[in-house]
């Protein structure tokens, strides 16, 4: 898929999410894990959403995921060549996140639910790197 990174909506990190975005710059997909109940969670927050414990650790995710669901948007978007897919992936660690799927045709025939994916980082601008995903075996 073709993305005009200049037109991508830029996320604005907050103090609670800064580790995630600096992780992307470092090529790491950073998640958080509760020091008490061991729950791994996302999106970032400085306490465990499963048990409320405040002592949590940043862990490095494997970057492995599967395609959970998606839509293929046919309406025009300033950053994307339509049609393009918007997906939800489930990471190996069990959390879900939204992403685009790179290096694959944006069609129902090519995008098969549960297909194995891996994280693919792309620098957009202003020091922001976004985590995208691509099929395992696709080149980047």
């Amino acid at each position, binding site marked *: 898929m073709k993305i005009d990174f200049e037109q991508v909506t830029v996320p604005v990190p907050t103090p609670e999410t800064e580790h995630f975005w600096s992780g992307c710059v470092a090529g790491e997909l950073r998640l958080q894990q509760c020091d008490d109940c061991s729950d791994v969670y996302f*999106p970032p927050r400085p306490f465990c959403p499963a048990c409320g414990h405040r002592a949590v650790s940043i862990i490095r995710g494997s970057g492995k995921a599967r395609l959970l*669901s*998606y*839509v293929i948007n046919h309406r025009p*978007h300033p950053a994307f060549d339509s049609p393009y897919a*918007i997906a939800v992936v489930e990471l190996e660690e069990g959390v879900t996140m939204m992403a685009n799927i790179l290096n694959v045709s944006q069609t*129902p025939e090519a995008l098969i639910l549960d297909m194995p994916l891996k994280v693919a980082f792309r620098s957009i601008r202003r020091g922001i790197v976004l985590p995208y995903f691509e099929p395992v075996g696709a080149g980047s």
Partner: protein
Amino acid sequence: MSAAKVAIVGAAETTELGRIPQTSQIQLHADAALNALADAGLTIKDIDGVATAGESPTAVAHYLGIAPNWVDGTAVGGCSFMLHVRHAVAAIESGLCKCVLITHGESGRSNVGRAGWASAPGSLAGQFESPFGGMGPTTMFTLPVLRFLKDTGTTLEQLASVAVMQRQWAALNPRATLKELTSVEAVLADRMIAYPFTKSQCCLVTDGGGALILVAAERAGDFPQAPVYILGSGESTETPMISQMQDLTRSRAFQMAGARAFETAGIQHSDVDHLMIYDAFAHLPLYGLEDLGFCGRGEAGAFIASGQTAPGGILPLNTNGGGLSYMHSGMYGMYALQESVRQVRGTAAAKVAGVEISVCHGVGGMFGASGTVVMSASKAR
């Protein structure tokens, strides 16, 4: 056994629906409110409680000239009005106020005096969803459905049949925006918006409004219209981010709101004569039928496709034509409530015979929140 303490005695929509460029959003609230007051035989001076979403209750009360003893600005999306009904019941029951006006008005199509919806770039949705090209509900609300279809064995044709069946109801309703009958083939062949959703499976974008008036059940016989009693209700929220649903194939908020509504009303599914399930997109009635317990897992698609929810079916569903065919201004919950009131009163355009119990189920945001209201023609059952 459950006895209603509060009833709806006034209910109306805006004078016009559809495209209303000559009217601002706040005036749509007021137009609906004045129509509901006329329906109830009341004046603005009788109202001492105001609830609304989309505008602040402060703004609505001031615009209408109401000095309220109670306000509710719960704004959790299109089901906010179901929650307002529930909160109004509690407020009237506990004596905080006597007569509640719930208003909705939305210049969804013409955008006259309407605020925007975009996520702040520093919000979690702004950081972790917006960069990936979502364009509002058509691409976000719809995102879970391929997982639902796969996990439940539901087909694209069954999904399309939702739009077909609701159009059959809309065809009976002179106020519906789209009234021409359609077919599964035509729905699937319509313009693709966000695969697998074609235009026919996405809600309309219109202008309009509606209002309800609630008083204590013991006063409900003093008004011109047959009372519609609130037998039970439920509400819940899940997540503001579609990517963070616990399970893309089930709505936790639907399940919690629905179960609580049935429990407080003291009813079983077999008691329900009429059902409204907020349908911003064609998959919502499927989720609703399963999450509310009307259908087992994976059975809703076949249930709808076989005509069970269409005119003549055993469970009349979305009998105004729904958000897909009747109207959808952005926060459709008010129109679902209006249709439940009309069916219980026996005044609906596509009238279902002998409606004693109507269940009205709303969604807010994109599976973000939910509210369910059980209405009854009788005070107790």
